[in-house]
């Protein structure tokens, strides 16, 4: 009988920062430009050129450090990581080795209905390399230097993750946070967030980690899930057959759904790190650090948990709301009025408002919705003064004319009829005119009820209280 195993995962996430310019020169930091147009002698590593550190890169990294509860080193340095590759024009990458900007942090992720705390070993800054271009139209390879010197932060986790599901939750959380604090676009399709994965397995109940294997070339989060599951299964199979796991680096091929040996421990690079003599030590003043620390907003992972606890929202609602900085802010503004149930507000924001945002391509800000007016509208619906469908009409009108909901309701005569006698009159009329539907219902075709309610609403010009009319219809259909 085979043993039970636990998978142990550590992740190294690389996120490209969204600064205006590159990390060590004034070239534009932009994606998708024509090949070799966003580069200069500095980022192309031409002889005699020198790097100068873009301070915005430090600010963004420190911001991320605080977001992940790290200790920020007030004094840190940059180092050279030496290796040869055609996309690395200096033949070294400027990175941080033994004294990174940020250390010893953590992030809370949400898995299976509860929070789990994942350690963050360090966050450091470094420069991205260029890209090799292979194409059938020419022999050999060409190099595009546009990406050289694009600023990166590398976020290294502790080996605290125990499943591909946890790894996915961690990656989603990191992505949400970098976007929330606006340090990275984190667009996977542009390669602006990517990860290397360390995987090992150990027998259940053991407290000694197995030998870890590093996997490179994982370009999507769903790919990460597949890569982890594949690698864990591979290692377990090796162990089950009495083999041992070698410390090595493997390359993930997402199309094949397999990984392949890239280099063994013996072939591991000796990067010959040493302090970068062309750059000064990074020294950060306390006032500078506290200013950045104070600028960190409530982060999406914490907001999510709070929405569940404080507003009793379903997980789906909470995660959709916190995924957008402006939607969650708007949600909280409306909740703060205290007039309407949070779930009703959430329904509106995630329903009609999101639909209109999608249709018009406008942000919430650009839609210029008056929160107070919307609150008044939602209150009218809540108090059943107008129907939900009338509410939608009012809202569309509000966006167009900026008139108050009260005015629109009055002008369009949308006040909901909740007068029993008036409604009974409509219901009786509809029942009399639709004998076939009545028979259908009584013969078991219960969806005839929906048709009848619709007819009643139509007859009331949308103003009848649908719930009351439905009850009246039912009492007739079931009892007479």
């Amino acid at each position, binding site marked *: 009988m085979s043993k039970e195993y636990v998978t142990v995962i550590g992740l190294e996430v690389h996120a490209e920062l969204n600064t205006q310019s590159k990390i060590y020169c004034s070239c534009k930091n932009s994606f998708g430009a024509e090949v070799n147009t966003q580069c200069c002698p500095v980022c192309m590593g031409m*002889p*005699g050129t020198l790097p100068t550190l873009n301070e915005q890169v430090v600010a963004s990294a420190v911001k991320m450090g605080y977001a992940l509860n790290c200790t920020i080193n007030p004094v840190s340095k940059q180092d050279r990581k030496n290796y040869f590759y055609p996309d690395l024009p200096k033949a070294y990458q400027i990175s941080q080795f033994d004294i990174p900007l940020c250390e010893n942090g953590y992030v809370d992720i949400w898995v299976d209905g509860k929070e789990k705390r994942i350690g963050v070993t360090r966050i450091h800054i470094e420069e991205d390399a260029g890209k090799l271009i292979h194409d059938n139209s020419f022999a050999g390879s060409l190099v595009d230097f546009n990406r050289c010197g694009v600023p990166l932060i590398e976020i290294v986790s502790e080996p605290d993750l125990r499943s591909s599901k946890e790894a996915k939750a961690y990656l989603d959380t990191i992505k949400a946070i970098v976007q929330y604090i606006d340090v990275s676009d984190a667009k996977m399709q542009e390669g602006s967030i990517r990860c290397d994965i360390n995987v090992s397995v150990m027998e259940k109940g053991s407290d000694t980690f197995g030998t870890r294997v590093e996997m490179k070339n994982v370009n999507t989060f769903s790919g990460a899930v597949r890569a982890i599951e594949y690698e864990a299964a591979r290692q377990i199979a090796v162990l089950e057959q009495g083999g041992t796991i070698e410390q090595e680096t493997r390359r993930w091929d997402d199309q094949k759904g397999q990984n392949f040996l890239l280099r063994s421990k013996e072939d591991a690079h*000796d990067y010959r790190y040493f302090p970068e003599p062309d750059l000064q030590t990074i020294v950060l003043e306390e006032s500078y650090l506290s200013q950045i620390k104070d600028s960190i907003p409530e982060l999406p992972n914490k907001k999510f948990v709070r929405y569940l606890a404080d507003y009793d929202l379903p997980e789906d609602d909470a995660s959709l709301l916190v995924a957008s900085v402006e939607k969650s802010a708007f949600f909280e503004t409306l909740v703060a009025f205290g007039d309407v149930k949070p779930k009703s507000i959430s329904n509106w924001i995630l329903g009609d408002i999101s639909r209109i945002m999608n249709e018009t391509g406008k942000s919430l800000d650009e839609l210029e919705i008056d929160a107070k007016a919307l609150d008044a509208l939602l209150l009218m619906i809540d108090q059943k003064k107008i129907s939900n469908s009338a509410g939608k009409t009012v809202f569309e009108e509000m966006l167009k004319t900026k008139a108050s909901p009260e005015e629109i309701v009055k002008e369009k005569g949308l006040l909901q009829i909740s007068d029993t006698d008036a409604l009974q009159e409509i219901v009786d009329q509809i029942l009399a005119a639709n004998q076939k539907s009545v028979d259908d219902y009584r013969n078991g075709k219960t969806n005839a009820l929906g048709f009848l309610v619709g007819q009643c609403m139509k007859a009331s010009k949308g103003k009848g209280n649908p719930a009351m009319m439905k009850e009246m219809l039912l009492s007739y259909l079931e009892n007479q």
Partner: protein
Amino acid sequence: MELYQLTAWELHQKLTTKECSAKEITQSVLGRIEQKEKEIGAYLTLTPDDALAQAKAVDQKLASEEPLSPLAGIPIAIKDNICTKGVKTTCASKILSNFVPPYDATVMEKLNGTDCVYLGKLNMDEFAMGSSTETSFFQKTHNPHNTEYVPGGSSGGSAAAVSAGEAVLALGSDTGGSIRQPSAYCGTVGLKPTYGTVSRYGLVAFASSLDQIGPIGRSVKDVALLYSAICGKDEKDTTSVRRDYPDFAKEIVPSVKGMTIGLSDEYFGEGVSDEVKSAVMKAVDALKEQGAKVVSVSLPSTDQTLAAYYIIASAEASSNLARFDGVKYGYRTKEYASLDEMYEKTRSEGFGDEVKRRIMLGTYVLSSGYYDAYYKKAKFTQKMIQEAFRNAFSSCDLILTPTAPDTAFKIGENIHDQVKMYMNDILTVTVNIAGLPALSVPCGFDTKGLPIGLQMIGPKFSEGLLFNAAACYEELLGGFSAFSALK
């Protein structure tokens, strides 16, 4: 007296009083180059047409009574590791033999503003690694005092050209003595500035934490003029220092009155020739007579410093020279079957032996498992040396030493004895390790008729003080030009 024999300051006087034109100056120096270059071999690239055009522009300014900078119309030559826009910059290496930079070094941008005249690019040891200019891929440069002898290195082309009158001033670079030692061998004045006072942007890096560009000339005032023109904070070089830089040439006061000169036994020890020792001590005595006080100071042993220097410099060089891989510019091997083979063959064929030796040494000392024993220890030694100099300068204003243990050696004499070659730097490398300024000035000739160099070392940013002391000594000797090979 021919125009090429005059100093920059003298030429500036003649220009402003219209005793001669910039064109005549440039023609005189170009004529001298034509006459001497075959036997000296100082230049790798000559740009006479550009030089004459630049001189013409200066004459036009002069004619329209526009004010001239002191370097306007002065023929200057540039070491071939300083990037010059549109002009080949080879570092005297096969691997960069076809490299034309699309940008100017910051020092060139600064000099462009002075309207000086550029003569061309000067020979050097390959990538500034060497003490004789013999490691140049292209040619040997000969000492103008005796062409059987080396001019020193690595800025051998710079010192030889200035000494021979093939340039009025030159820029060199100094990582471990590369401005001062050739200045001593050729009888010129050379300044290795305080680390961080001259931008390194556009200087092809050898050892980034030690490299400094500096001037070579035939008088203290000329060297001060060129230093003033190139120093200053540069936003493109974060190791350059922001401070007030005075007009050094203007502020020279040729005096040592009230100065305390420090002497250290460590710098007069084994290996330093008797002739050199006595010439240096004679200079010390002369300055004493001018009112200087002399004290003895303690400095760390020179062999310890030399070891630290070769570890740090080689480590940085191994990384700095990695970019010459045949991918982007420079030499690429002709035939290769794989990327690795392209790298290996390009670098094996493109670099000379001395460069390869230092790349291997540097790669070794940075390797995991050796880093602590070598690089880390060397950096620690560097801190101790800096501290020792700080202490020494609490009891003196400047320290006098010989620039090199001996005068120039014969071409080919040391080329197969690396340790002997490295010993040439033993009195100069400390200054780079400590980031200090030092000036080498002539202080006599040996019995073979070769010049002897005196090194003046000061605390950080004390260039002004060094100029004052050197100018005082220069007056005593009746001008340093007499030590050049202008005849």
